[in-house]
């Protein structure tokens, strides 16, 4: 979403389309607000912003979007959190492993996610208010 928020940074849609995107500036502004609500919420609960940024970078990497991954990771200083951006990193404890494994599935295989996996998340200690 960070890339799309700046239409001029989307070379694959072409300069003319970037100009057309300006007519939807309201949409890009609302996209920025939605991104902020997910990545830097006022109440981050059990998932601090640095953690969310690292996971966003991980998801960008899983989608083969290295520039977007770098964008999210740029705001993360803690090496332990930065390590989570590597899709090969499993997480530092059972709860984190459960959450990250679930998020990888949501990102890459949404059609395959089953109800039992939600129950698995609850079992590993995640409340109803997991990140959007």
């Amino acid at each position, binding site marked *: 979403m960070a890339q*799309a928020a700046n*239409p001029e940074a989307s070379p*694959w*849609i*072409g300069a*003319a*389309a970037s*100009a*057309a*995107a300006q*007519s*939807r500036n*309201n*949409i890009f502004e*609302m*996209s920025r*607000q*939605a991104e902020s*609500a*997910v990545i830097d*919420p*006022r*109440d981050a609960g059990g998932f601090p912003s640095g953690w969310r940024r690292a996971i966003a970078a991980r998801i960008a990497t899983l*989608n*083969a*979007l290295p520039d977007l991954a770098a964008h999210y990771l740029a705001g993360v200083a803690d090496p332990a959190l930065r390590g989570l951006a590597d899709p090969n990193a499993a997480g530092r404890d059972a709860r984190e492993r459960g959450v990250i494994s679930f998020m990888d599935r*949501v990102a890459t295989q*949404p*059609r395959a*996610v089953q*109800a039992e996996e*939600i129950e698995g998340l609850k079992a590993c200690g995640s409340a*109803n*208010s997991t*990140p*959007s």
Partner: protein
Amino acid sequence: MSRVVHRFTRNVPDWQPRVTPVDLTKASPEQLDALKVTPSNTKVSDYVLVLAHDPETLNVRSPLFNGIMYDSGGLSRAERELGAIGASVVNRCIYCAAVHAARHAQLSKDTTVTDELFANGEKAKLGPRDQAIFDYSVKLSQSPPAVTEADTARLREAGLDEAEIVDLILSTALFGWANRLMHILGDPVRKDG
């Protein structure tokens, strides 16, 4: 008894949450604000009540959704629905596909497009413009970085202008998010009998 619906349909099923919805009688002021609940408007779907666990995101999600799907100009509403259906087919969100196929049929006054989409999924054969729109939304949903300038050129060849292309990208991308919420947070169900 309810059974989970596994096949694409235009007959919109019910939706059964996998995550406990917010209890409206116990909702916080921020949740009530995000839910747009007023004394004269207390009807809120289970889906929105589940999303209300994160009121900050819900508060921006609804206007974003409405802007992308309903703002004037650009791609027609029916063709935005086609982008939404393409994403929903790839992500196999039965509920989203049903809602937006029904809207597409209503807006276009035609069921042949969604009949074909549901019969053949990602291999559906459509008219040239619909085919270009559907194929683009499928490819973008499957793998965003796989989309190239050649794919965009195909949209132009099918008659889409630049503003319409941007709207197609927006509606498809929106459903990358919406499908994940709807399909993963609950099940499409139909009551037996």
